[in-house]
């Protein structure tokens, strides 16, 4: 669609003639139009509300309040138009303004809840994104309720959405320091994972890492280093699974991985003996975990969270050595 295709917009308005027999009332803001094709007729209808799953009600032209009910199945096309407040809320979501997004999505969900049951209705869409926002905000207390209240029967929701609703409470429980077993079971469930997007897989990795980290009470020792290693790997898998989508969990994952690496046996002992920044020889001789912690801190400081001020990250990043400058040029 062209920018400000006002002629198109005008054409839409011009063409937005009432569907045969349907009354138009664009004044009420919680009423939505739908593009409907039925038989040989097509056009926009003002939908009053859903009348159950895949059933919609509208007031025909000539009638004041006599609602007529029809079924989406009887239509070739039934496409609800997207209200501006949902567009705005999703804009906040995509612009990473999560507090505003969460509030607006909750509002959208409430405002348009009378459309639940219809395909691509804004209330269901808002519910899905509200849940996603809560996960991104790490609001683990709210996630189970939001997941539970997702309209699972709604035709708007596909397998990915439904699986996400199943996964989210498990993620919340483990991420809050709970048992690792349920999330491990999900990570091993190949059938479940078919409907898990890359981002949601990242959630599972994050949650698993948190649960493993919770087992490291009293810090990392030689005895629990294996668990710490697993947690580090899972945090890193969270980062790469997101591959730049939704920065909140990956950022937290990276910091926690960095901290775990920094606390692995031998790392801080080496740091005490090393002089920051390291030279090539000291870097090559450093423990692998030390190098990884420093590289991760450096990435956090320069790429992933350059605006954030974090003393620990800054301190560890001082040890970083850019080994790329020593590599021979490729032919």
């Amino acid at each position, binding site marked *: 669609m*062209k920018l400000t295709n006002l*002629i198109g917009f005008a054409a*839409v308005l011009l063409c937005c003639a009432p569907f045969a027999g349907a009354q138009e009332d664009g004044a009420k803001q919680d009423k939505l139009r739908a593009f409907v094709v039925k038989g040989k007729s097509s056009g926009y209808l003002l939908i009053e509300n859903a009348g159950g799953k895949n059933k919609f009600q509208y007031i025909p032209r000539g009638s004041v309040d006599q609602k007529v009910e029809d079924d989406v199945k009887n239509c070739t096309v039934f496409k609800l138009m997207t*209200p501006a407040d949902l567009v705005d809320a999703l804009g906040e979501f995509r612009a*990473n303004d999560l507090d505003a997004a969460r509030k607006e999505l909750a509002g959208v969900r409430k405002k348009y809840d009378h459309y639940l049951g219809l395909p691509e209705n804004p209330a269901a869409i808002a519910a899905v994104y509200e849940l996603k926002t809560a996960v991104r905000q790490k609001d683990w207390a709210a996630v189970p309720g939001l997941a539970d209240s997702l309209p699972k029967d709604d035709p708007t929701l596909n397998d990915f959405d439904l699986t996400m609703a199943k996964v989210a409470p498990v993620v919340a429980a483990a991420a809050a320091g709970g048992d690792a077993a349920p999330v491990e079971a999900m990570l091993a469930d190949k059938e479940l994972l078919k409907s898990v997007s890359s981002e949601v897989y990242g959630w599972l990795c994050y949650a698993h890492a948190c649960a493993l980290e919770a087992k490291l009470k009293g810090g990392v020792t030689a005895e629990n280093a294996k668990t710490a290693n697993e947690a580090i790997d899972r945090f890193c*898998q969270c980062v790469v699974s997101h591959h730049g989508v939704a920065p909140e969990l990956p950022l937290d994952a990276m910091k926690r991985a960095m901290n775990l690496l920094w606390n692995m046996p031998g790392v801080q002992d080496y740091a005490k003996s090393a002089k920051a920044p390291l030279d090539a020889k000291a870097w090559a001789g450093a423990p692998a975990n030390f190098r990884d912690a420093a590289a*991760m801190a450096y990435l956090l400081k320069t790429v992933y969270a350059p605006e954030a001020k974090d003393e620990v990250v800054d301190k560890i990043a001082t040890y970083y050595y850019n080994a790329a400058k020593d590599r021979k040029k490729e032919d």
Partner: protein
Amino acid sequence: MNNYSIATVMAALALTAPMVSHAQDPLSSLGQVKKLSGAGRADEALALCEQVLKRYSGNGAMAKQFAYLMPFYAYEKGEILRTAKRYDEAYNAYKEFRDSAKWKDKALLEKAKAMLKDRMPEAYAPYLTQCIFQMGHCRYLQGAGDAKTPGVAAKFDEAIPLLEEYLDLLKKNKVSRTERQLKLDGRVCFLLVQSYLLKPQPDFKKAGQYLDLSRKSKGRVPDDLAMTGLGTIVKVATQNPENAGWIYKVIESSPASYRMEPLRAATHAAKFLNHGVKAASVAGKSMGTNPEMALEALRSANALLGLVPDVREVSVNLVDNIKGLGKYTGVISDPIPGTSYSAARQKKTFASYKNMLGNNQNLEGLAIMYTGNTALNVGSTRLGKAGFQVLADRYPNLSSGVKKDKDGKPMEKDGKPVLNELRNTIFMQLSQLCYATGDDEGGAKYEKRVDGASLEGGQSKSLAFNKLRRILSQQQWAEVIPAAEAVKNEYKDNPSNKFYATAQYSIVAAYYKQQMYDELIPAARELLGGKILVAGEGKDALTAKEVATYGSQGYYFLIDAYMKKARQDAKLYDEAIAVFEEFAKTFPSLSMEENVMVHHMHYNVADAYLKKAERTVDEAAQEKLKEQALSYLKVITDNWPKCDYYPTAELLTASVNIMKDDMAVKQSAIAALERATDAALAMEDGKSTAANALYWLASYGKEIKNEGESDDAQAARVKGYVDRFWKEADYEGNSFALQMVSEMLATVKDKESFAAAVERARTVIGREATYNHNQNQAEPELEKTINAYVKSYVAGSKTYDGKELTLEEKTQHFTNFPGIQPTDKYARAIFRMAQIRAMNEELKGLEDETAKNKMTNDIQATFREMTREFRPDDLTNFICVQVGDYLVRYVSEFPKPSERKDEINLATTYYDKVLERKGDMQGEAQLGKANALAFSGEADKQKEAEVLYTQIASSPSAAVSAPALMGLTKLHLSSGNAAAAVETASKYVAVNRTKNNDRLDMLLMLGEAYAKSGKVKEALQTYMNLYNQNKGNISYSAPACKAIMELFWERNAPASGDRLKGNFKASDRWNAWNTGQQYVTLIKRSNLLDKITPAERDAYNAVENLLNKYKADAGVQKEDKANRDFQSQLKKR
């Protein structure tokens, strides 16, 4: 816009508008214009616009009636041309609209508003300001270009003022309400950001200002605008990497434009990924040279990769939507988000996604891979590994699409596309990164999943070499060989390549570690052969230093291999020496820093010469070899006083020099031993060398005085050595401590020295017995020391304490010796046997019959007690053999061993238990049993011994085969089978070249065998060789001399020839006498007689007696006189 709607509108307007024919109807024409433009028939659409504008211009009634619609047509011209990408014409059309006074007429606008109030309250008012934007928009599009038409950067300079003018109107609200509702300022700022970045003289400051403004605005830019701008910036950034950071800034300036919901993202996903890969490439290439730029590029790569949707999720969304659109062929617009839905378009997109899924071309999988790799490039191995781990778990069959041939065409095989599969890369990278992070288990697991056969070029080489490196770091030596061979195979076309060289070196090292010396030698020769260790240029070539390191190490492995093998085949010492000579030629430097193996090599060659000397019979040759060894030892002591070999080099030097006759040389040996002691004690693990040196100092120090040293000073010096030994060099497992104790016990001279010796002996014996018991090994010195202790304790108790120990007291003391573990059967058996031995010796000295009988009974009682305590069933094979051997040695000390039947039978029960149980010590048990049976006087037992000896004589272990040959020779001699004795003795002498007492004993037996088999000449030859090479060793020279004398006397060949003619040959009997005469004279002059043992004295006396006997012979006297007369006549002439 569909015809049905237009008809309805027209029907609705029919009340207000006069009827006009269809051909002239301006409303339907507008719909027609839109349709023609949408179908790409721009010229027809323009023509229709012109037609309508012309028709309804002027002052006619129809013109006046429809005048309010004409601005729509005028503006539509710009739209048509812009859609057709005829931007200059579109610009002019918009400009014409803007400049036209007609359309600004307020009355006309009001009429249009009135006519369209229900549908379009503002009528064409938005166009009056929109046209400014569209002019700028056209210039922007010209600047950006597209896939087919390159952009003209100068157009951005023209776009900017127009866009800014429009932005100003927006800010001042001087635009229509419709435009205000659409919140266009963010989008206009977005276009200005790009224009300022992409114009010929970029203004980053301005771009930054508009970026900030853009972020504050809500809403999103339409997809085509967003993607065009992004594509342009990526292209510019790829060409000018310093601008790479602007990519993520542009994305962040309008996140809603780029972070699309799945359906929208579907169309652009591949572009996001490709752009992300380009940015990642900039990051990767510049990280080493310009890290700041690289990090900006990395941020951009992350931002772009974050826009790639999940292919499966997208596919599900597409399927749902396509289903929802059914058979509808039109396009549905959703105005607020600005999205449109078209079943045809979505089906096309879905087809491409289905194809991607079919090819395992998961775009988000590729995004994950690049995310991990970019982090790996910065140094985060964990993130790199995580990327490949997620791929292995979720996308193991990932491909990056269809392979293309050199002409860029997609490749096919058997009708199926040939995919660029990443499976092997994924598992190989994951395995290597697992190893790098210490997860060896993971590394091995994923390495197995790499299909080596299908790896290409560099990958298979990498895999092979990394596998070798891993195995080397884990020191799995058995696995090194095949892994190294695999690396060699990869680089077989270039054997001087450093990987090939490393592989060959690893093979040599692995053989060395596994002590596989037969295999090591050819491998080392291959390494050192000249084709592999060649320094060169280039990243894969060996440096000169690497060549030197591998080479010198290779020589070390080789020489050490020969030294180890030479223990079985002494000829190989020559090979070891040859290796040293090669090494010295190749690496002549004596600097340990430059030539890291030089001291090892010198030590080995010195050792080789010493070992050769040990096995050399000829004394002169032996001396020469020792001098060679000394020269190399001197290099060590002169050049490397701090190296680990230094103390041993001094020790070995001293061991040679201390045996020489020259006192000054002997004194130098003492000095060398002192230096060895000091240096060894300064080392962390030098105690054993120091103990050795101090023991020799304590022993030889008593004989070798320093220049001008008094007896008291010498005694004090020796005491100092002893004290230092116990204070600084003693340790658990120190066999020299036992020897020191034996010597202390042997030199007891008073009560004080007896008490000191006994106290020290108890400590050391207990400690060493326990040590050896725990190590499950036998220490020969322990036996000697225990024997010495027992003897000394019994005698000393009587002499110095006035105590005659009873049997019970002796048994109590020796049974419960302090420090001996109750489980240490071996040490306890030694004590018991030592006690029996001491009692037997005491028995010899008794004269009183009663005392003799009592002692005999005591001995038998002790013996019975011993057999009860040490039953073979309770002992290990090792201890059984030790006890058996002990009994055999005990028996051998008796004048008539065959009478010790009980001991012989007892010994065989221990050996039989070992043979019955099988397991270890079989050869030793067979030998021991044969030795026991050989002492028996019974023919069948002796026959059994002969059978056993013959079996063992062919054993590959010289430790049993040599004694077996010796035992067999003795048996043959005692049974009168001289010929067989010659055979076995000759075999022994030929194989066992080490010059030791066993060899000398065998030479004596060989001589005897020759003599008994009538081969007098050979017998004489053997005895003479033995005699000539061992004159100073009276134990052997005396019996040999006696044998020579007897053989000559027996043969009694007469004198022959003529003295005057010079061919006189003396008679045998004269030779017999003369040999003895020379020997006795030599020994008397040598001062050896004061130092020899009683047994040696007896042997010497036998010679002297025989000499005196032969001297008295008249024939000898006559011949001797004739010789003397002839000699004196010769002198007178």
